[in-house]
Structure formats: structure tokens, C-alpha cells
């Protein structure tokens, strides 16, 4: 399916500081919104677990003294060719024609988890209490909300990011902030080998590129 509009997040790995504000704001908005509740099990116990649409991971790249810490937010990538959609036996998993957002209809989901198996990125989480598959909705209940001021019609994670590491927009619109960022700053997709054409892109760290170039020059 070729989309004429494809909403997506572009995440700037140069400035993400790993504060998890996007994680908590996502949970706060979505647990109370149309995608919720996002339940927790044993939240104050020794082994707490729960449903989140967005996680921030941390990686250490290279060896001392060139070591870099990379904070890496990951949520559903809203693939243009989403492998999770055709496998769904009920049609609960679907991709919207109008804006390319991949969503789950919680009233149709039977909780078979097959879509989660078919997603190479691990972007889907089964809510243990509701027993339905959940995932990032790109805050579909925020971005079109007429009750919010226009400046706030963005995903909760984008609003919350203190370093502006998260950009939101239509990657099919060449003039959009996200399209320009991808084009000018070498935005890339995760696991391109699986040909899922993720809509979300990541902006590479300039320092990493400089170190790699310097190493090539030395070699």
C-alpha cells in the first residue's frame, strides 16, 4: 500500500538524554485516553511490570576512550509495509489509509499475540489485564483533537521531550519538518533488511559519524 500521507516520528539521537519523559508522558496520556488503560502488575513490588507504548533504551558504543552513551527511544515505527497487519486473523490490526497510522481495534482483538510475533521490532505489548494487543497510536486521540489548542495537537511524547529530540509530521510531504530532517541529516530506518519500510526515522549522531570518519582517515 502506498500512502499519500504518512505520519511519523523522527528521533534525533544527538540530543536524546535518556530522561524517559516521553515514556511517562506517553503512559500518562494513553492510560487515560482512547487506547487505555495501560495496566501495571505488581507496580510497587519487587518485580513490577506493565504496558508501555514507548521505551528508552541505553547502549554503549565503541571502546574507551572513544566510548559513547546512546539513548535510544523505541516505539511502533508505523511501517509503510507493516508485517503485523496481514497476519492478524480478525482484522483488529490495521493501517489507516488517511494518515498511515497502524492501530489495533481493541474490541476485535482476540489476544492471540500473532501480530507481536510478526513484528521484528518488538513494538507491540499485550496488556496482561485487558488481554488485548496494544501499541503506540501516535496519540491519534490528541493530534486531531479540536478541544486542544492547535500547538498541542502532537503526540504526548513530542510535547514532553525537553531537548526537542522528537519531531512529528508527514514524511510524504516534502516540505514538512520531518522530511527535511530525514533528507538533510541522513535519517535512517531500523532493520532495513526486513523491508518493512518503517515510517519513523532516526537522525544519526554527528559525533559518531565524526569519530568513524577520523578512524577511517587514521587507518
Amino acid at each position, binding site marked *: 500500500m502506498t500512502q499519500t500521507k504518512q505520519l511519523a516520528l523522527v528521533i534525533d539521537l544527538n540530543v536524546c538524554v535518556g530522561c*524517559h519523559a516521553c*515514556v511517562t508522558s506517553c503512559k500518562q496520556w494513553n492510560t487515560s485516553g482512547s487506547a487505555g488503560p495501560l495496566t501495571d502488575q505488581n507496580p510497587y513490588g*519487587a*518485580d*513490577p*511490570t*506493565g*504496558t*508501555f507504548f514507548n*521505551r*528508552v*533504551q*541505553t*547502549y*554503549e*558504543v*565503541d*571502546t574507551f576512550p572513544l566510548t559513547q*552513551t*546512546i539513548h535510544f527511544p*523505541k516505539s511502533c515505527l508505523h511501517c509503510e509495509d507493516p*508485517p503485523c*497487519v*496481514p*497476519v492478524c*486473523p*480478525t*482484522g483488529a490490526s490495521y493501517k489507516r489509509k488517511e494518515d498511515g497510522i497502524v492501530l489495533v481495534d481493541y474490541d*476485535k*482483538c*482476540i*489476544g*492471540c*499475540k*500473532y501480530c*507481536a*510475533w*510478526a*513484528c*521484528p*521490532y*518488538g513494538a*507491540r*505489548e*499485550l496488556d*496482561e489485564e*485487558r*488481554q*488485548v494487543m496494544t501499541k503506540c497510536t501516535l496519540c491519534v486521540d490528541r493530534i486531531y483533537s479540536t478541544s486542544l489548542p492547535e500547538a498541542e495537537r502532537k503526540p504526548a511524547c513530542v510535547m514532553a521531550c525537553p531537548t526537542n529530540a522528537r519531531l512529528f509530521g508527514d514524511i510524504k510531504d516534502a516540505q514538512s519538518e520531518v522530511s527535511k530532517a530525514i533528507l538533510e541529516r541522513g535519517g*535512517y*530506518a*531500523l*532493520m532495513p*533488511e*526486513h523491508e518493512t519500510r518503517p515510517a519513523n526515522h*532516526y537522525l*544519526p*549522531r554527528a559525533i*559518531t559519524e565524526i569519530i*568513524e570518519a577520523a578512524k577511517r582517515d587514521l587507518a
Partner: protein
Amino acid sequence: MHPAFSVISFTTLLGAAQGLIVTLGILRLLGYEINHLAGNLAIGAALLVISLGASFVHLGHPERAWRAALMWRTSWLSREVIVLPIFIGLTVLWAFIESTGVSQAQPPGVLSGLVISILMVSLGLWICTAMIYACIRFIQEWSHPITLINYTLLGLASGLTLTCLLFVIKPQDPTLIRSVGYWAIGLTLLSGLTRWISVQRNAKLSPRSTLQSAIGIRNPTIVQKSMGMSAGAFNTREFFHQRSVFFVSNVKRIMLIFGFILPVALLATGLYWESPVLIALGFPIQYLGMLSERWLFFAQARHPQNLYYQTVS
């Protein structure tokens, strides 16, 4: 992947029941006189229903399971959901016709047509079940025609040993038991060979995805320091078997011994000494082997999402 007991018992029971019904169908078409045919078919249908019940245990919302028949155009799971009840229905119909006492010497044309369609539907069901796994292109352990071959051959082999068990419980012509026993030995050996080929193939696979392609940073040294949570999540529960290498290799040994070596030895000695007890033991022993085989099938599948979940902190 985490091997769910519901899926393991569903697929192994389903395969054995299909193998039983296919064996009875072929014998019927060849014109063999089978005692208690309707009863044996009813046992097959009951096993199919039990396996269907096991598949419901896997669902978060079993009351909505009917919806799973809707997306047959794109989903192999949906196709399986449609084909399995058809298979059960046709088997029950055949059992009913046999219970009315039609002549077994020469199957009438309509009955032959029914039996042939049951054989075709069973083949379709094996394809649907295997394709559920084989169609996930980035799970390299599954995404190969060997998955289809194994599901079909393992189902046939366990179904043939199950037929041997049923044939010694309710007396049959000794030559019929003997020929089914030989086929059971042959299919068990053949399925053991193809399953071993897939185990060897899995051991040699090099993953298409790496931590480098997963986070898009081209540096040979990347270490995960945090996966973004202090304890577990769905991602750590669903996609990891969380057992030791020692445990997995023991399951592999149990699969080989119980699934293939012991059943062949029991059937061969049972047929040689004409011992019903040894022949009857073939199926329960082999079923334990099939459970471990299916556990291994899931445990050995390495999901690319696991690249993102390597360090709990």
C-alpha cells in the same frame, strides 16, 4: 520464542489426530476391512476437538474467537481457523456414515469422494498450521519449506503410531497391524531425518539482523546498558524461553530418544514378537517426544526483537 504449552499441545494433538484420520482414510480407499472404524474415527474427531480447545486456552479473548475466521485473504492463522472445523465436520460425517454399517469391502463412490476430500483438507490443514510459522520471514528458523515438511511428516508419523495403538486395543487383522506398523516405523524414521536436518540448519544460520542494524549504528562494539525497564515486560516474557543451554540440549535428546528412537524400537520389537503391549507403548512414548519436539521448535526460533532486550536494568 517462549514455548506456550497451549500451542504445543494444540499442534501436536492436531498433527497426531490428522495422521490417524489420514491413515484410516487411505486404508479405507485401499479396501481394507477395519474393525471399529466408526469408533476409531470418533476418537480422531474427539482429539481434534480437544486440540481445538487447547488452542482457545492460548487466546486472551476466546469468546471472540469466531472473528478469527474473517481475514482468510491474508492470514494463515485465519485460514487454519476455517479449515480445522471443516476437517472436524467431514470426519464426524464420515464416522456417522460408517456407524450406519455400510459395506467396507468396496467403498461406494460417494464415500470415496468424502474420504478423498478429507485427505485433501487434512493436507491443507497441515499447510495452514505450518505456514503460520513459515510465513514470518524474519524468523529464519521457521521461514523455510522444511517447516511444512516437518509438520506434515511428524503428524503422519505420530498418527500412524496412534493408529497402531488403537488397532491393538480393539482387535484387527494381524496383517493390517503389521503393515500399519511398518509404515509407522518408516514415517518415524523419515520425520526424524527431516527434523534433524532442520536442527542442523538452525545451528548453522547466521542472523540477518544484528544489534548494528537494529539501532542503526555501524560500530562493531555495541553493548546494551539498559533495555528501558527495571524488571520484565511482555517483550522479555513472550520472546525468550529463559532456559539454560543445558536444558535445551536435554530437550533435544528427549526429542530424539522419545520421539524417534524408542518408538521405532518398540514397534519393531512389538511386531517381531507379536506383543500388543510393546506396539501400544509406541504412541504415548512418541507423544512425549512430539511435545519436546514442539517445545524445541519454539525455543530455537530467535526473534530479531530480542536484540533490543539483552540487558535487564
